[in-house]
């Protein structure tokens, strides 16, 4: 079942991720991210109904972020995450106050208040 889609061809794209975001689909998700980052200058990641999440998916989001920055592309995450994803982000210890990029410590998907994680 393909429950991950891309919309709005052109300069700005939206990558909608839903369903099970786990190791079984991580290769497929990587391709989706790679294609979307290559295709659009600015990419917005959206989440539909997420039914499962594991560490591979969270790690992949970080990799996508690093890739986009390397290619000088913009990528953004929603301010509010679906509950299951928010719970996994919290449980996996991803929440933080400073990001990894030395040149911009505020550019990180995981800088968010605990309650809105």
């Amino acid at each position: 079942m393909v429950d991950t889609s891309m919309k709005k061809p052109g300069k700005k794209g939206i990558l909608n991720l839903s369903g099970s975001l786990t190791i079984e689909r991580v290769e497929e998700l990587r391709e989706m991210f790679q294609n979307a980052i290559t295709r659009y200058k600015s990419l917005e990641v959206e989440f539909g109904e997420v039914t499962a999440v594991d560490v591979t998916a969270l790690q992949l989001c970080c990799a996508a972020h690093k890739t986009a920055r390397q290619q000088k592309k913009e990528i953004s995450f929603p301010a509010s995450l679906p509950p299951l994803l928010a719970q996994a982000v919290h449980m996996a210890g991803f929440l933080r106050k400073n990001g990894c990029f030395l040149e911009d410590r505020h550019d990180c998907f995981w800088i968010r208040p605990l309650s809105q994680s």
Partner: protein
Amino acid sequence: MINEQTEMFKEEAFELLEELETTLLELEKEPGDMGLIGKVFRALHTIKGSGSMFGFNEVAEFTHEVEDVFDFVRGGRLVATKELIDLTLSAGDIIKKMLGDEMTAAMKAQAEKIVTTLRSYPGEVQPGEEPKAKMAGEAITLEPPPEPTEDKKGEREITYRIRFNPSLDILQKGTNVLALFDELKELGEIKIVAHLHQVPTLEQMVPDECYIFWDIILTTRVSKDAIRDIFIFVENDSKILIDVVDDGQGNEDKDYMKLGYILVERGDLSVDDMNKALSSQKRFGEILLEEGVVEADKIESALVEQNHVRELRNKRQKEEIVSSLRVPADKADRLVNLVGELVTLQARLGQLAEQSIDPELISVSEETARLVWDLRDSTMGIRMVPIGNSFSRFNRLVRDLSNTLEKEVELIARGGDTELDKTVIERLHDPLIHLIRNGIDHGIETPVERRRLGKSPKGKITLTASYSGAHVLIVIEDDGAGIDPVKIKKKAIEKGLIKPDVEIPVKDIYSLLFEPGFSTAQEITNVSGRGVGMDVVKKNVDLLRGSVEIHSIKGKGTTITLKIPLTLAIIDGLLVYIETEHFIIPLSMVEEIVELTDKDVSRSHGRQMTNIRGSIVPYISLREYFSIPGQPPPVQQIVVVEVEQRHIGFVVDMVIGKHQTVIKSLGKIYKQVAGLSGATILGDGSIALILDMSRLALAAEIEDENPVKNKSSYKSEVEREEH
């Protein structure tokens, strides 16, 4: 001495019983929480042990029966079911009665019944025998004993730093890291920080490999080995370092290590780099971030550890302080009284010094004043206790009441660390019980009704305490049916409290609920509806010099706000006089002071009203009210106070100024005099009476409604109100 020790034991036992009750109610929500089970067991064990030591054999034997059953729960042989919690709560009630020497025949029978039921729970399991429940019914289920994760020796909470650095292929092997963390979370308080800086780009990564490692800070009672057991299936493929960062002994510096030392200790920063960063004027963490000496997530992780341990040590220190202040209340009261005398004496010294020209005397007086004020504040602080303990007692009330009324109600308490005078908290207990009862009985609807109305089937009662100047606001809020003002008005008309044709503002309609015997309940239940609640609430709050206000929206809920002074013993007052008599007006109620000239009086044509910046404020002359002979001066002063959100003026000859007022109670003979709440001794040894503004305001209202009545008649109305 023996009596003193016995009293000490009783006091401690009552506290433990409170704690037991709170823990049992928490356990009801989290039946598998080993921490809570351990807490219940320890409370029972201490009551039993100390009871036996102080000759309370009945208490010790009875508690022993309950403790035995909880030993099985602790060992994983029994589950803390609702039935067992009910039984233990009832046992707690019985122990309270035993301690208070209030056991009746019926209670003794109940105690025996509890013992019989407890004994029917499964006993020791013989070798080879499968554990099984002896008690009838499916309520008790047996489970195999859990893994030996609990540190049997340690009662202390130890904080560990765990660095979990898994192999690249850990995820490919099917390990669910989140489930592993979930298991760790069960052991205690946990903070997890993932190190993400090694995650590569999409092209470089094998997506099912793990590029992350984690730091975990865990505060728990279990041993290092028990933690290692959780990693048992991944330890061959991972580097796992477990270090103790706080051993729970409580003999350490509460500040914990500086960030740099934590990073050096973890091996994330070299000593040279630390010294280099320390030589800069900027904040240490900022330097490391800017320079990129250490990855951001390593700093983040070290800061999480630092904050976690600091919070823990602070909490521990506070607990130690609280537990070391076990002083009988009467001793603390005597100290407060003595300080009160000292405040009075200091006022005399101040007055003498002011009249003197001796600079040394003035200096000594000022120095003494400063010390006395500090002493006063510190002493008053001894009497201040957090209201949270009182709040937690209501959990039981809500639980039992919602069961009786077949309603689902959740009690949410906020601001439990707000501190109030111990006596004030004790006196607030009954009013709060009435208000919570009313909220559940009349406010919260049945689950069926709530569903029909589109509300969650579980109603909410929220208790909130917060500071507001020299007062504490206690707000009791429910999300129930609200109060119907039309119904109240109808009832008030029926009871002859108001006339049918009189229009009354909604706020005043709610005030009718405080009239004695007023109830709109359709039927009288054993919970409420007899109309003996709200007037008692009002009376008790008035006695505390507080106020109560109701706000309600039909269908949405009711909010009742109690405004209570922080303390009862010493207040800041405004000293005024009329002829030769001195009076004190509580300063926290004073809004402003304006002049009243003869001209103003004649312009008002006998109506006791004045216009203050466009607002008409009624006033009463205290000279007339207290029948003080003599002629008022041509320019008097009106002290405008706020009582129950209304402004009322009190006319006096002259305002002297602020006065530290040590409240002394009035003798029996003055009990019937309306408008006085106490007395205080002034610096020159004379007496000043403390005015009861609420009662006097009531007099002003009556005067306002019946301006033709003479002064003595409203005084008698107020007195009648008092009875």
